[in-house]
């Protein structure tokens, strides 16, 4: 793994309060292209607040966010998408009744050329074909693109969802508990896609409670506790026990 000198995403002293509750206190870190960063912490540690800040779901009270060298301020999640950050929330995922290709291109549909396209007619064939190509790049082979997502297994679905984020992101993908509810073998499918996305030069923020997955797939781990970054270190420095200790505050 090569770490470039310029971070693709940098947070400087981000603060966020909900009324009198301080959710984030002086959160700072740098994230580089081509690395998977684990973002861990107990419930209420500030993980959700942090990813919502990065994805533009809400704004920080103070602090700076620099994406690819430019200080940015999001007005909506759409802004962060335009700037090359894709977020996969737990509850969003895919539309099960649509085909894989339709899901991959959801919100970014390709229109037919010419007059039909002007009326909003879609070029379904191109979308299905390109979806297959793009998914293959991150190591996902789906049997038939014309299948609906509901016909896929849970692991395949989540892999497709991650693949979708990887396809559209220019810089960063944020994955909120992507291996939740998945069995061991299915989780492996998803972790493989995450590794493939990293190898394509993306920065992956991986949020999870499943510590073995975090240790397996990440290059670096950032531990949040009570809204503060308490540890930011290479994954090799952690074991499940020491990571758990850092999360709960038993050891520092």
């Amino acid at each position: 793994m090569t770490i470039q000198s310029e971070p693709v995403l940098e947070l400087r002293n981000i603060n966020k309060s909900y009324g009198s509750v301080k959710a984030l206190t002086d959160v700072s870190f740098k994230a580089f292209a081509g690395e998977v960063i684990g973002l861990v912490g107990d419930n209420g540690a500030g993980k959700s607040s942090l990813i919502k800040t990065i994805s533009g779901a809400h704004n920080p009270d103070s602090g700076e966010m620099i994406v690819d060298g430019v200080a940015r301020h999001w007005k909506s999640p759409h802004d962060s998408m335009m700037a090359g950050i894709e977020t996969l929330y737990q509850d969003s995922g895919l539309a099960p009744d649509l085909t894989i290709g339709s899901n991959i291109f959801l919100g970014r549909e390709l229109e037919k050329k010419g007059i039909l396209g002007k009326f909003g007619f879609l070029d379904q064939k191109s979308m299905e074909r390109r979806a297959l190509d793009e998914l293959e790049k991150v190591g996902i082979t789906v049997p038939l693109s014309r299948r609906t997502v509901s016909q896929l297994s849970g692991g395949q679905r989540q892999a497709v969802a991650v693949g979708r984020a990887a396809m559209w992101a220019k810089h960063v993908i944020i994955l909120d508990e992507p291996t939740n509810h998945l069995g061991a073998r299915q989780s492996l499918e998803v972790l493989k896609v995450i590794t493939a996305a990293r190898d394509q030069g993306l920065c992956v923020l991986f949020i999870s409670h499943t510590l073995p997955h975090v240790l397996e797939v990440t290059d670096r781990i950032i531990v949040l506790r009570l809204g503060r970054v308490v540890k930011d270190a290479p994954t090799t420095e952690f074991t499940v026990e020491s990571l758990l200790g850092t999360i709960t505050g038993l050891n520092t």
Partner: protein
Amino acid sequence: MSTVETPAASSNEAPPPSPLRRVASFAANQQFILFLVLVGVMVFFDFHNSRFFGTSEFTNLLVDFSEAVLIAGAEMYVISSGGIDLSVGSTIAVSTVVGAYAIQYLEGHHFGEFPSLLLGTFACAGVGAMVWVINALLITKARLVPFVATLVTLSMGEGLALVFSKGGTVGYDPAAAVWSSTGFWIFRWLTLMVLTVTVVLGLVLHFTRYGRYNFAIGSNPFAARAAGINVNRHVASVYVLSGVLAGLTGMIWYFNTSGGAPQNGIGNELEAIAAVVIGGVSLFGGSGRFTGIILGVAILTVVHDGLVFINIATTWNEVVVAGFIALAAVLQSMRPGTKRLM
């Protein structure tokens, strides 16, 4: 009404399709079965009364079809986006009454026949749009569930139709009746217009961005929002579209009955929903084919008219319709990959 599927609930591997399975899935294709049913029903009626396949009967069939197909189409849009619409029928009633008043007024002021009818049509569509703006506001702003919101407008529409018309038929317009009975072969001009609109509705639903968003929202509104789709705006627009279609149907009633009666279209929302169910559209939203509801409306229309032909009291109509709904629902639940509650 959509279900956010947890991957754990369906973590089994998808089975590979075998040739046998493909044949089975084609035979189980609801469109195909519906088509066979439609042909079967028509042959059955013709067998009992050979006049059924006559030109005049087909003309009548198409007229009845065109009274039902637009609101079924509207219902299809609403249901596949994850909602439900109970107020299409009563909107027909209000718009037919208001449209009749508008035409009466315009003709009384020497506007001429054609401009009056045209403006009356706009008045009908406008009333429909207004009802659905109320629906859209109740659903997207007041956050009522569609069932309750459209129940409100259902009652309101029924009531207002009676209030406006004072309980009687508004206007009597022989000119409209004359015009609406012209056309060529088995098609009346009005029928042709309705069929054109129907085809456009089907194309938009299945081949354009608008239709894609409709299904996406019905399938998983969270995913749709995360993909940058303005869910509220789309849902509101679907109800407005539905209102305009019901308003236009009100005008069709005006032409076919040469006047605006407050009982026009009352209860037709159930027929529209029945057509949607028979057509194999998931009531959970997210899936369905437009050809299905066209076949559904066709079957209901043929059964409705055919019973008269074989001398069975029309009161049996609802019972026969119930049978078709049950059959269609069972077919749908047997389809692979169907969402189940239990």
